């Protein structure tokens, strides 16, 4: 048997947004899925495998789109996959999912697919909703008119899936047909040369190549120029041709729909919920309440698994230390790699939960209502209504926030959203805020207002101000010709599909671990090397002196001596040297070189600040005991001035620094992944650090 005959048949799933396409995909493939990348774009490539009666089929889930004409990164994918020059990479069959209640909109895309000459079958999904709305569709009429096999399903109710499977198995797809004669709109003098040059099988494919070839980066630049010069030479207006095509196509579809859909006294869709959820006042109250509820839940629920993970990795480190022979390799594993992996894994509960909630909001149809409510308030800052999702997620953790920004179609709005999301005060800043506020802000109440709580609120607000200011700045700096538009469907409210919610949580966490994990691990190892090694002779001397002291020390002071030695070792490590190196730079902010070390190590993650400070001021092993750290810090005296190291000015300056500074390599890694390069994460890190520096400088001078 030759290679090509055993090749797994490839079926692409396509459809408008919100038609239940992903549900069908999940039910056909189960957990048998793989999420990859399309080259050059950040759209997830979802592939799954369906086994049916001993045969395997590869199913490709294309992003939702309204037409073959791409408007966003998502939609380019559908266009590119279906028009792929390489026939081997093109799907063999296409399964189009249509919302039964939105027949004409679905048929618009379906008839374009017919004209493309793909082997097509149509699934009319949400048959239950159509029945509820008293819409009766005569499938056979559509089949007669289009020549495409068609069946009805209700994927949420698991109805009709067996038919889809057997349809695929029997390869019951349409064979070459056409719906619209594109040569009535586009002259043959344009179509013919394209068809010949690229060996295309019909005029519609030639038209697609003509329309989008010049912009498609997957095509040879020389060929792109050739297409462009062909268009220019004939002085043809392709855009009005597209409008004409749309008009004619919809006209034909409208008469088809009239002949095959029977509406019996259509009931008005229930809009009772929207009366509250989209209300000019109550809408926002509901939104805020839902947000509060989500954060409350995340902070309460996620802390349990996070503590467990923290403890588990500490134990693994200890275990590695015990089992393996002492040496550089062992400490690399126990102090570099294991905590590095732990630093990735610790984010999983938050990421998974946040994506779980987002999936629920998305699936019920509420999320597009939020976009509707917030668009007006986001736009003056160069953001889109959809930016609200990343920004809100950013309060828990910037990583899922940045990942959620990919839904924004407009490049400029997406980049601005990604760049400002890490300025929202995330949960990792909380330990830093708490310990510093505890040091310098008295725990007094003014009426019902607690001064410490007020300060904390102020820091969060400062982050939001940073977001708006930066977004505004970027709005004027970044140039984009791309049109921004909202045009979003507010789907009927439905109960969430729990299986899909769980799958989303799983796949998003996996993406984070696999993609960002590598970078995080690499940086952790580098930081470990810098913190563990220093000039060898000096380090050795400290170690020896430490051992001598330890031998002389009485039983109850041994821990203190050990802590002092490790503190000395850190001071003289490369990171310690770097800390001293940056002291002149950070002195104007009110920091000494010890804080400098903590600033460097906490680039890994903000909460590391607390543990580093604890190590440097040799507080001993119990990092969790916040009180002891606070007391120790409070006692630190600056030898030069005789004042407290953590006075009001320094502490506030540090708080403000942490509000704005990037200080999170996981975010850097995710921004790298989402923007496909180092340009934006670098610009972002430099900008945030500079902003943090000057804001901290200002703060220090105000308070001192």
């Amino acid at each position: 048997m030759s290679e090509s005959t055993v090749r797994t048949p490839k079926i692409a799933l396509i459809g408008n947004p919100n038609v239940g396409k992903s549900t069908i995909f999940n039910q056909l493939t189960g957990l048998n899925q793989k999420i990859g990348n399309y080259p050059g774009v950040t759209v997830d490539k979802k592939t799954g495998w369906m086994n049916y009666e001993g045969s395997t089929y590869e199913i490709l889930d294309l992003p939702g789109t309204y037409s073959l004409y791409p408007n966003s990164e998502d939609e380019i994918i559908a266009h590119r996959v279906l028009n792929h020059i390489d026939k081997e990479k093109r799907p063999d069959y296409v399964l189009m999912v249509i919302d039964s209640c939105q027949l004409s909109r679905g048929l618009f895309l379906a008839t374009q697919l017919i004209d493309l000459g793909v082997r097509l079958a149509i699934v009319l999904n949400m048959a239950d909703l159509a029945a509820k709305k008293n819409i009766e569709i005569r499938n056979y009429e559509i089949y007669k008119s289009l020549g495409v096999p068609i069946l009805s399903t209700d994927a949420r109710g698991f109805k009709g899936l067996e038919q889809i499977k057997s349809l695929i198995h029997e390869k019951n797809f349409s064979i070459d047909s056409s719906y619209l004669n594109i040569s009535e709109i586009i002259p043959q003098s344009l179509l013919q040369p394209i068809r010949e040059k690229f060996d295309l099988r019909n005029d519609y494919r030639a038209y697609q190549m003509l329309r989008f070839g010049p912009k498609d980066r997957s095509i040879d630049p020389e060929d792109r120029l050739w297409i462009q010069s062909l268009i220019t030479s004939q002085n043809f207006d392709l855009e009005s041709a597209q409008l004409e095509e749309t008009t004619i196509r919809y006209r034909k579809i409208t008469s088809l729909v009239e002949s095959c859909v029977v509406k019996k006294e259509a009931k008005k869709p229930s809009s009772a919920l929207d009366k509250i959820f989209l209300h000019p006042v109550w809408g926002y109250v509901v939104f805020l309440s839902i947000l509060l509820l989500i954060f409350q839940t995340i902070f309460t629920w996620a802390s349990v698994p996070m503590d467990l993970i923290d403890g588990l990795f500490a134990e693994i480190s200890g275990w590695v230390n015990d089992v393996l022979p002492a040496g550089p390799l062992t400490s690399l594993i126990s102090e570099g790699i294991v905590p590095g992996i732990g630093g990735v894994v610790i984010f999983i509960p938050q990421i998974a939960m946040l994506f779980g909630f987002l999936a629920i909001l998305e699936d019920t149809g509420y999320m597009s209502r939020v976009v509707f409510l917030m668009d007006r308030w986001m736009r003056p800052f160069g953001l889109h209504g959809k930016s609200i999702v990343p920004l809100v997620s950013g309060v828990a953790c910037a990583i899922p926030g940045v990942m959620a920004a990919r839904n924004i179609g407009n490049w400029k709005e997406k980049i601005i959203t990604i760049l400002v999301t890490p300025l929202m005060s995330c949960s990792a800043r909380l330990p830093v805020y708490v310990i510093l506020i505890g040091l310098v802000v008295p725990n007094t109440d003014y009426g019902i207002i607690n001064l410490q709580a007020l300060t904390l609120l102020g820091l969060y607000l400062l982050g939001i101000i940073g977001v708006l200011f930066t977004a505004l700045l970027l709005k004027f700096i970044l140039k984009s010709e791309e049109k921004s538009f909202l045009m979003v469907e507010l789907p009927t409210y439905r109960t969430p599909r729990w299986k899909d919610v769980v799958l989303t949580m799983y796949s998003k966490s996996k993406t984070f671990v696999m993609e960002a994990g590598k970078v995080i691990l690499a940086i952790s190892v580098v930081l470990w090397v810098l913190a563990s090694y220093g000039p060898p002779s000096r380090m050795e001397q400290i170690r020896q002196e430490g051992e001598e002291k330890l031998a002389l020390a009485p039983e109850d002071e041994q821990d203190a001596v050990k802590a002092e030695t490790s503190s000395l070792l850190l001071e003289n490590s490369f990171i310690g040297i770097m800390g001293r190196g940056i002291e002149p730079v950070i002195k104007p902010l009110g920091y000494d070189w010890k804080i400098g070390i903590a600033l460097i190590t906490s680039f890994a993650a903000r909460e590391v600040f607390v543990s580093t400070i604890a190590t440097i001021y040799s507080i001993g092993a119990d990092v969790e005991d916040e009180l002891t750290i606070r007391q120790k810090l409070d006692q630190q005296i600056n030898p030069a001035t005789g004042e407290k190291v953590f006075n009001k000015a320094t502490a506030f300056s540090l708080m403000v620094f942490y509000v704005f500074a990037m200080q999170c390599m996981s975010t850097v890694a995710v921004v790298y992944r989402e923007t496909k390069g180092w340009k934006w994460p670098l610009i972002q890190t430099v900008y945030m650090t500079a902003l943090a520096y000057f804001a901290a400088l200002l703060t220090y001078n105000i308070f001192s």
Partner: protein
Amino acid sequence: MHITADTMPASKSAIIREIAASPLKINLMELGFLPGKTITLNHAAPMGGPMAFLMDETLLALRKSEAALIEVQLL
């Protein structure tokens, strides 16, 4: 009387007459905003925010500037 959809009174219905020429025209048409269709203004976000129109039993949100491209005749 011909007006544009952004000036429609709340909960009133209108028939689409024409979509004005604009780079966004094609997007509106793809969504189904076509001459002859009936739309109802169901919701409007405050302070000139987006508007939600009911068309063919679907609720579609548009920015005010996008709705301004739709010429309608009130019913």
